[in-house]
């Protein structure tokens, strides 16, 4: 009896621990499978409906657009479905499609692209990223229902393999915009099989995911795993080194970190912020801190006194010690922000205007009529409920108190309540953040244009709007960037927002994973990834 018990115990232990030190990550390398942490469960894998980064990561492995993401430089184009392209005045773009196939064997045609553009712009689909296509002629009008005839929109299939896109104004970096999943093609017959072109609940993505990218969907279990496997029919399949990718939607940062530690992942999407200094301290080779095209800032409601006074806004900005915040609070290698647009866009050199200058801050608050903060009304600093936002808000509250002598109340709100309050303009000072959609400064500068929906500060300066508009008719690349930099300087001299820091991506990656390059947009070309 004792013997039997002993044996069964052994068997049980054996099941859990097969007496080998090989971790799942080791086994996966043998099989050529990449194990990735991927944040949370994507709400959709439909390129025209998805609005999250987590969804985007999976979609780029499955579907390829006209231009593919470049493995090392987000600002460069890489031939995707289009093997060559050309343009007239940056306005009429012609794409020549290669001989590529959908996973069901159908050829990828220019008509598929036109159908896809029509789909995302269909008013009833209600795509939240349809705006990404508004540079196309009449796209906005079609999306808003002003015109109903899609042939008036600037997308035309000249033949099976030639696509012409006409823009409403010159867009020199158009090839960068169309890397976004909102421009991706879908297989028209499959979409029609499971619903109409404009049905938001069309479930083709779960019924039959027909795609054209380097990988195809193999298994999708909500909140558990998304598995993709190599697509042998992909035009460049020879170059794809991985046999598959497993995306794990791990919400808990701690769980993800422990999974990485136990060898269950090759890549962790995030790191718990309190662990970053620990890994930095020990020079952990798995830790990566890379620039990320995003900015953390405070919006000042320019319609509310005394924030309608630029001097007050500058005083608040000058009193923020950004170095202290990134060194003592965020601790993840973030960069103190002297301006709005994050660094990394080549040729774009905006003036650094926001800085820490307590003396100037005091002078300005005195000039504004509040010497030593006397008579300054009690403003509220609003942020969404999160420990890290609270720590920054408390630090800034303290800086304003000690340097300007003003009292600010800090208040947090649940995410949706917060976003709602901010959109409605019912705040004085609110936390904000913005991540670029493509590598060009206007992805940031546009949100502060007078008519922008994201302009929470309710900032309006005709000169700023005018400069941005002008920049688009400028044909010389450097002069265009200079105009944008000039616009940014005008905006920062008005200081409707207080830039605090520029984001970095912090993650951990197994050193055996190669070809994983720093990309400020965090868009991955998985064809370049391989194991040592």
């Amino acid at each position, binding site marked *: 009896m004792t013997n039997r018990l002993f044996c069964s115990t052994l068997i049980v232990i054996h099941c859990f621990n097969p007496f080998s030190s090989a971790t799942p990550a080791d086994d996966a390398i043998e099989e050529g499978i990449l194990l990735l942490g991927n944040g949370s469960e994507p*709400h959709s894998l439909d390129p025209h409906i998805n609005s999250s980064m987590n969804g985007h990561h999976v979609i780029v492995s499955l579907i390829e657009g006209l231009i593919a993401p470049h493995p090392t430089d987000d600002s460069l184009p890489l031939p995707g479905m289009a093997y060559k392209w050309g343009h007239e005045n940056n306005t009429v773009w012609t794409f020549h499609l290669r001989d590529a196939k959908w996973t069901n064997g159908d050829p990828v045609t220019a008509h598929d692209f036109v159908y896809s553009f029509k789909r995302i712009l269909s*008013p009833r689909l*209600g795509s939240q990223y349809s705006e990404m296509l508004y540079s196309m002629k009449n796209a906005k009008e079609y999306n808003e229902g002003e015109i109903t005839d899609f042939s008036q929109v600037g997308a035309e299939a000249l033949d099976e393999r030639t696509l012409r896109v006409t823009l409403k104004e010159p867009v020199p970096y158009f090839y960068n915009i169309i890397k976004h999943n909102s421009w991706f093609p879908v297989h028209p017959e499959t979409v029609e099989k499971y619903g109409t072109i404009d049905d938001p609940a*069309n479930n083709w993505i779960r019924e039959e995911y027909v795609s054209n990218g380097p990988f195809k969907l193999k298994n999708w279990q*909500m909140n558990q*795993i998304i598995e993709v496997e190599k697509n042998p029919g992909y035009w460049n399949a020879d170059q794809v080194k991985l046999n598959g990718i497993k995306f794990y939607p791990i919400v*808990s940062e701690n*769980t993800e970190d*422990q999974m990485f530690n136990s060898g269950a992942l090759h890549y962790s999407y995030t790191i718990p912020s309190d662990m970053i200094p620990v890994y930095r301290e020990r020079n952990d080779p798995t830790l990566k801190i890379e620039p990320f095209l995003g900015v953390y800032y405070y919006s000042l409601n320019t319609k509310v006194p005394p924030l309608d006074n630029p001097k007050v806004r500058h005083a608040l900005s000058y009193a923020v010690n950004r170095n202290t915040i990134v060194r003592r609070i965020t601790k993840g290698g973030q960069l103190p922000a002297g301006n709005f647009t994050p660094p990394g866009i080549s040729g774009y050199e905006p003036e650094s205007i926001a800085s820490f200058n307590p003396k100037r801050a005091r002078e300005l608050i005195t000039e504004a009529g509040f010497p030593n903060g006397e008579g300054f009304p009690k403003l509220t600093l609003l942020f969404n409920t999160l420990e890290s936002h609270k720590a920054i808000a408390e630090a800034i509250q303290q800086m304003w108190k000690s340097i300007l002598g003003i009292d600010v109340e800090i208040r947090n709100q649940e995410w949706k309540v917060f976003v709602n309050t901010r959109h409605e303009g019912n705040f004085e000072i609110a936390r904000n953040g913005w991540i670029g959609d493509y590598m060009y400064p206007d992805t940031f500068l546009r949100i502060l244009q007078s008519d922008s929906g994201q302009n929470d500060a309710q900032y309006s300066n005709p000169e700023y709007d005018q400069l941005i508009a002008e920049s688009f008719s400028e044909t010389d690349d450097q002069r265009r960037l200079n105009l944008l930099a000039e616009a940014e300087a005008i905006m920062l001299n008005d200081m409707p927002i207080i830039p605090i820091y520029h984001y970095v991506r912090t993650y951990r990656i197994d050193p055996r994973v190669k070809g994983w390059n720093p990309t400020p947009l965090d868009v991955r070309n998985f064809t370049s990834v391989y194991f040592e």
Partner: protein
Amino acid sequence: MLRFILIRLGQAIPILLAIYTITFFMVLAAPGGPFTQERKVAPHILEQQMEYYGFNDPLPIQFFRTLWQHITFEFPPLTSYPGLTSKDIIVDTFPVSLELGLLAMIVALAIGLPVGILAAAKKNSILDYAPMSLAMVGICLPTFVIGPLLSLVFGVWLGWLNISGWFSFADRILPACTLGLFYAAYIARLTRGGMLETLNMDYIRSARAKGAPEFKVVIVHALRGGIMPVVSFFGPALAGLISGSFVVETIFQVPGLGRHFIQAALSRDHSLILSTVLFYAALIIVANMIVDIVQILLNPKLRYR
């Protein structure tokens, strides 16, 4: 007995109706909607989405339409997972939560009952104090502390079990223990309390007087009365366990219902909030009814009420 069940089921209808009504209006009262996003949705897009999901209809129409959808089990597409309905989510995730909950219940009973009985039988000895202090710790330690601790020890250090996931049977062990230990502590305390009360009864003295062995007195005579508090606790606890635990499911990456229960509220998904709340309410009602039936079977005094 049949009459009792029918009465209880009849009572359930107004309860569910009340829960539906309260939830429906609370969801509407919450600031922010299903389409509130950091990137502000253009007004015409918002309008289209509101129209598609029927949020533009007059309130009474929305109220009764959604009610009818829940009566007929014909659910509309979800705003947070386009293409899926509440039914898809519940059918997909409830079996997972059910399995995890039942395993956790087994863990809880297997630890809680013997410990509680032993503590009561050896009152005021080390066998009472030690496990009861531990139980107190168990109640105080939240699952989000026990969970990561267990996965650190068994996952990272010993490497016996996976940190997270829901793929093999071994993946059930850590979440079930995390969830079960918390309930085990409660059950141990309730068992001890119930047993102590019963052990002081006259009929136990009679049993001892006629020479029944101590083991038989405790297990056969006292236990039946002693576990009554546990049985009462069992109903709501079981309903809570099998409808999923947000914390444990998040820590261990378990694809259960509990995460949707919370996530639905965070993403203001009206249909999913109502479905999960009603589902949970129905579970509690059924579990409580079963408990009442069991209590009647265990306690003859209740049969005549």
